[in-house]
């Protein structure tokens, strides 16, 4: 194969000629970040990968445990039991809140969804380096897929929760349908959060060490085990703190879910403009997180 092109290493072609040659044959710079529309298209083509990856991770999660998939339901229930023992029984919060068990369990499950999505998101890229380095796909598929796994996990938990609700004599009602929009908004919010954290975690692995503390603080501030409005009622806190506590996305999604599921949780216990907050948070986190993640697409898995 003798060719007119210069091959000996001594004769380096000038930069223009290489670039021109590449351009003439439609070659592109390797590893460059695709444009946003192209990126979204590629991601959409990988939708089956995203769902298959989430399902595979979910089933693999407890594959080494003797009880296997039973842990899908046992883990969240045990979590709720621990909080019930400490906050319900020892600290006696249950006298302030009607239907305390469903109230607590809903809070724990909904917050766990966001918490686990954030944790998984932080490690989504840094923990899948083998996959990232072996195959080419839009990296945003990973954090999104991890959030989807958490959503599936939550659906298992919700099944258990519905059983609990029925056991505690909460009759099924039409408001249960509100679960769907609430969960959709929360999923979009979680995905955006996971995308943003995935970029941070990919660059600074130390974030993964820090996240559990941040998330625990967030949990205690989100009214998972107590009712925020009850706590706020007899306090003289600055207005900013009140707004901050009520606008907190985790609290917003938890309140919506309680409103949907628990009969005694009436609309007057919801903070003002709660659906606007829920939608706003989903949009800000979803769009912002996606853009932020995409901006560093070419750097993932390098080094």
């Amino acid at each position, binding site marked *: 194969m003798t060719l007119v092109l210069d091959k000996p290493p001594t004769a380096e072609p000038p930069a223009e000629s290489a670039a021109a040659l590449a351009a003439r044959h439609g070659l592109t710079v390797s590893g460059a970040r695709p444009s946003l529309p192209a990126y979204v298209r590629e991601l959409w083509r990988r939708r089956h990968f995203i769902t298959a990856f989430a399902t595979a991770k979910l089933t693999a999660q407890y594959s080494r445990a003797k009880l296997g998939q039973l842990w899908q339901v046992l883990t969240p229930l045990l979590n709720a039991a621990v909080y019930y023992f400490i906050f319900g029984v020892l600290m006696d919060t249950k006298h302030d809140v009607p239907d305390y068990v469903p109230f607590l369990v809903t809070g724990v499950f909904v917050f766990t969804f966001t918490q686990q999505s954030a944790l998984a998101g932080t490690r989504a890229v840094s923990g899948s380096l083998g996959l990232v380095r*072996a195959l080419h796909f839009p990296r945003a598929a990973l954090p999104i897929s991890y959030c989807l796994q958490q959503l599936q996990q939550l659906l298992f938990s919700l099944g258990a929760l519905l059983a609990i609700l029925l056991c505690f004599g909460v009759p099924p009602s039409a408001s249960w349908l509100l679960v769907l929009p609430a969960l959709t908004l929360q999923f979009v919010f979680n995905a955006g959060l996971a995308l943003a954290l995935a970029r941070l975690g990919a660059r600074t692995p130390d974030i993964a060490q820090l996240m559990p503390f941040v998330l625990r603080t967030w949990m205690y501030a989100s009214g998972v085990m107590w009712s925020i409005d009850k706590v706020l009622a007899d306090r003289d806190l600055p207005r900013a703190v009140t707004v901050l506590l009520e606008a907190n996305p985790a609290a917003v999604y938890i309140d919506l879910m309680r409103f949907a599921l628990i009969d005694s949780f009436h609309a007057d216990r919801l903070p003002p403009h709660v659906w606007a907050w829920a939608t706003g948070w989903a949009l800000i986190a979803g769009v912002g997180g996606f853009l932020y993640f995409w901006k560093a697409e070419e750097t993932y898995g390098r080094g």
Partner: protein
Amino acid sequence: MAAADATPGASTPRTHEPPAPTVVVDAVDIVYRVHGSGAATARGAATAALGRVLRRRGGAEAGVRTVHAVRGVSFTALRGEAIGLVGTNGSGKSTLLKAVAGLLPVERGRIYTEGQPSLLGVNAALMNDLTGERNVRLGCLAMGMSREETRERGAGIVDFSGIDDKGDFSSLPMRTYSSGMAARLRFSIGAAKDHDVLLIDEALATGDRAFQQRSQARVRALRERAGTVFLVSHNNKSIRDTCDRVLWLEHGELRLDGPTAEVMKEYERFTGGRS
């Protein structure tokens, strides 16, 4: 991303005009930055780590060691070429391949490629907790195949890898595989797609003779479909069997670039017959 794959076996008719380039590497320098793995004394000591963080604030990347792995390499690869990369350990072969695959940034220069090159290496881990079958399915979907394609090719990929030769391993988690089996399955997944540019890092050395012959046939088929194949290997025979052109790297510099027979003669004289 390239359009849908051509049907397997249907080779593109040869044209009479000179083959088009698929990879243009233009005066490329690659520098590794290794964080925090500097002097052994600095590692792990909390005060040293804190110092590193504080110094990084100042702008200069102190505490980060740099390794200049590839220096001023230029070449152009054409359609249908199989190019071997040889060189002693640490000469920058694998680094160069990673950069062509777009997995490492270049310090200076540019790398242009047709489509998205795929790197097949022995270190590329899939998901160890999942079964071989699941890994095949996920790998195919991740590479952008449709669900139908994934279903059609799944069995073929398992057959190609030969992991089921000694029992039904494809339904067991990958963590139960021997390293050779895992490497074979990874290669089989990666090679299942018709890539424009395929980069193979030592992967052909894994597996028994039968598997090596299957993978060499696969490399030939890819070349006939007008793709370009790069092969890094320390096995001079496998370079001679597979490649028609060889790049010889030494200390990150391109020492020779030419037909396999000529370059390998010089390279073997340099290494004294060893590889």
